[in-house]
């Protein structure tokens, strides 16, 4: 009986341990949004905001995953050294693009509405960016990569049904195809963007 009780308690302990450590995707999104919102509404210089936003992106976005997704079929033609180089170039590009996109906003209000688990790897979290007097409310869905439930990561933002990752993938493909399949041209474009 005591043995059974110990086993039972141990199982309950394991379950509770898991519950403590795994983060629900919707809570993850809300906390990320709150973090970004705090940064944007704080009395800081633009440069300070950008640095903080970059750190938020490093903590919450699967930059490497998005980078390879954006490369699409061209990823298969890269050597492992080129993949490493691309990951670095893409990371710089992404952080610059991400922070400059957000830095212009002041205190955006985003409300998380619901979540839908697609499979063990992905959950879509639905949210709404509140309307202002200049623009209507905007529906934003977040593709959250949940393979490691303890550390969910953002892989895509889907704004009014339009995927930013998908758009970027087609943009990159257009650049590479325009250069007759030369991926180096994309590397140059990404580096130039990061220097802006």
């Amino acid at each position, binding site marked *: 009986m005591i043995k059974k009780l110990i086993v039972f308690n141990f199982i309950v302990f394991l379950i509770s341990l898991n519950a403590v450590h795994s983060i629900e995707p919707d809570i993850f999104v809300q906390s990320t949004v709150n973090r970004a919102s705090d940064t944007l509404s704080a009395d800081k210089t633009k440069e300070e905001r950008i640095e903080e936003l970059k750190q938020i992106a490093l903590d919450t976005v699967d930059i*490497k*995953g998005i980078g*390879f*997704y954006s490369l699409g079929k061209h*990823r298969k033609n890269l050597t492992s050294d080129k*993949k490493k180089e691309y990951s670095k170039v893409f990371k710089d590009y992404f952080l610059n*693009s991400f922070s*400059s*996109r957000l830095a*212009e906003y002041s205190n955006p209000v985003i409300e998380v509405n619901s979540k*839908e688990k*697609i*499979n063990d*790897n*992905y959950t*879509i979290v639905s949210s709404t960016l509140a309307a202002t*007097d*200049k*623009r*209507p409310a905007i529906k934003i*869905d977040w*593709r959250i990569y949940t393979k490691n439930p303890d550390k969910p990561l953002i*892989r895509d933002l*889907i704004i009014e*049904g*339009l*995927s930013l990752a*998908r*758009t*970027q*993938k*087609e*943009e*990159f*493909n*257009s*650049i590479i195809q*325009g250069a007759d399949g030369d991926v180096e041209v994309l590397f140059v*474009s*990404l580096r130039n*963007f990061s220097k802006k």
Partner: protein
Amino acid sequence: MIKKLAIILITTLALTVNTYAGSDGELLLKKNDPSNVKDCFEGFNRATFAFNQALDGILFEPVAKAYRILPSPVRTGVGNSLNNLSHLVTIPNNILQGDFKQAGINTGRFVINTTVGILGIFDVATQMGFSEYVKEDYGQSLGTAGVGPGCYLVLPVLGPSTIRDTTGSMMNILGGDPWYNVSVKNDTRYFNEKDYYVSRGTDGINFRAKNIESFDNLEENAIDFYASVKSLYLQDRKQKILNSKGVVDTMNDSDWEEIEDK
């Protein structure tokens, strides 16, 4: 000239219709996937895109910015009124897509908003509990019937389109838009062609005014702005043709799964 252009477009469109017309949603999804839409006229498209951008910088963006100075209730009223007018194209397309229930709802909304809502300025129907209004057009109806998008096309002034969607737009001036029929095509005592073109122009300005920051942000952060706009347009059309609000319906997860072995 317009008749000739319509015939050319319809003929080209006929060539894009394949034997799978009218098949299931999965095929519809595949056909309308942005990556499957060919950019057959890329040189022409990029030139037209550059022209449109210049025109936007000189004309549309400044006008849209000026339009935004108007008080919010005025802009809302203008937007409502234009939305109300678009029911005249949406309702026949609800019917063409076999969605008779939605056609009935939209007819009710149009009647209420045109009368009680004073020519659509006030969206009384939504306040009465009518479901959210979703626009439909002839391009979407062709897509729903299984017609593939054909090549991507950038039209001067009008912007991104496809062969199918351009053909759909031509249907508006070939009798499919009652507003065009009573204002431009037929000489009525109440409306003339100026009313039609003003309404279309205002619709464009209203759209541009709502998206000034989004467009600027997109342009500033794009490496290839043309490719970004093309992707966004084709994604939007795909979603509209599938009448899908959920991203899960339109996203192909294999896209993402392929990077698992990165």
